């Protein structure tokens, strides 16, 4: 066995990214569209897929917790819920609609050849690095508006998680069964190699569970955008990066499920546990989507798109990058990881995401796509 404590993490995250990227491209599993199309087209189909993913993850995580195989619980990097998560969610919603995809969505689109996705990716790195400049102010605001020191809703109510999670999952399962009977979980598809979104939702729930089981937390990638930003910025402005408090922090300190030593990591430029978990995920998603697009012969770069769409993708990316640090965490982390265990930050993020997506949709149809 290799001695690096990162070995299992690197392998798991790479595979998780590859499969997720492939599956998301084939089924066009776009979280942004799930919320946006509800406002723009009164189309709730994709939102039902999110319900399926969340309910499946709720059951998997809760059964895993009861079996004692998910450690630590709740997973690391979640903090006390505060207004910062709510406002961050709102900004995130605006950003993801303008960028044409969320953090993960733009990655699989980039892998399939979307130039706008690439521009949004750069915007996110910029936005994340920019956040480091005013992190002290934001962090003070977050501390001042903490609603409860408890991480999850069951903790806040001093209840065993099962008591809240299983009934909620049962309600979700009942809804899904109704939708299934009404034929609302499938729709015709005309694309080559299409994977039905309901299958994608279950596969992604399984990947999230595998990541929690083997890495110690579900899928998350945004801290490493700040990391990439810090790395690039330190090439031109090393003294400045070195004195920013945000890049010195090591918010991640945990013992991985199959490890013995404490792994640490943060948004700073050095390669650490955050890099080991998240860089392979980013690379894997891009590569998985690229392979998928090549196999169906659909990879091609198109640069000739309206200029305002480049501007929108960049601005949206910057907003996403900043918002992901304000929350902190992205929609994949919170919706696929935190909501299933009823984490307070994640529930507030979701609450902010709804009006944010609505505002983003208004801006998009007013200024971008005309």
């Amino acid at each position, binding site marked *: 066995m290799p001695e690096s404590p990162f070995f299992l993490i690197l392998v798991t995250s790479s595979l998780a990214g590859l499969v997720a990227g492939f599956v998301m491209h084939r089924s066009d599993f776009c979280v942004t569209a799930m919320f946006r199309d509800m406002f*723009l*087209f009164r189309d709730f189909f994709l939102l039902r897929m999110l319900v399926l993913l969340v309910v499946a993850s709720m059951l998997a995580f809760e059964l895993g917790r009861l079996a004692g195989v998910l450690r630590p619980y709740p997973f690391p990097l979640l903090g006390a819920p505060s207004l910062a998560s709510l406002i961050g969610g709102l900004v995130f919603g605006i950003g993801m609609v303008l960028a044409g995809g969320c953090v993960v969505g733009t990655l699989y689109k980039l892998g399939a*050849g979307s130039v706008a996705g690439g521009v949004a990716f750069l915007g996110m790195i910029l936005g994340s690095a920019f956040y480091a400049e005013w992190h002290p102010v934001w962090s003070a605001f977050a501390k001042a508006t903490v609603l409860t020191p408890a991480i999850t809703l069951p903790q806040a109510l001093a209840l065993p998680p099962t008591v809240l999670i299983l009934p909620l999952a049962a309600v979700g399962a009942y809804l899904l069964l109704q939708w299934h009977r009404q034929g609302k979980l499938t729709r*015709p598809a005309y*694309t080559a190699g299409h994977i039905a979104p309901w299958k994608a939702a279950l596969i992604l729930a399984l990947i999230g569970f595998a990541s929690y089981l083997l890495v110690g937390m579900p899928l998350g990638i945004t801290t490493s955008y700040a990391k990439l930003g810090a790395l690039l910025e330190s090439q031109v402005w090393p003294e400045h990066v070195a004195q920013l408090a945000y890049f010195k922090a090591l918010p991640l300190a945990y013992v991985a499920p199959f490890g013995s030593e404490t792994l640490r990591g943060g948004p700073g430029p050095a390669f650490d546990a955050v890099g080991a978990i998240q860089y392979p995920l980013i690379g894997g998603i891009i590569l998985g989507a690229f392979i998928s697009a090549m196999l169906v012969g659909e990879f091609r770069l*198109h640069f000739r798109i309206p200029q305002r*769409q480049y501007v929108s993708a960049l601005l949206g990316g910057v907003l996403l990058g900043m918002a992901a640090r304000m929350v902190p965490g992205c929609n994949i982390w919170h919706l696929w990881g935190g909501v299933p265990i009823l984490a307070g930050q994640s529930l507030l993020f979701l609450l902010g995401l709804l009006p944010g997506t609505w505002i983003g949709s208004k801006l998009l149809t007013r200024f971008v*796509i005309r």
Partner: protein
Amino acid sequence: MAEPTCIQLDIHGQVCPSCLLLTLKTLNQHGDSVRAGQTEIIVMTNDRKSVDTIPDAVGKMGYQAEVTRLESGYRIRIYGH
């Protein structure tokens, strides 16, 4: 009867949901003509989602849609009866 005129929309590479929005906008402007069989709308795109959603969306509005494969994307033909 004369051949219908074609309105071509090349939406390769654009951000979501340009494809569906621009298709609906064009249908708003030329709907009567499309319904009467005088105009057809040809959408060319590599956006997989809209290839799956446009036929459904325009079908509900009473139009026909036909998807064919292009070299690196798809062509959606929207027409009346």
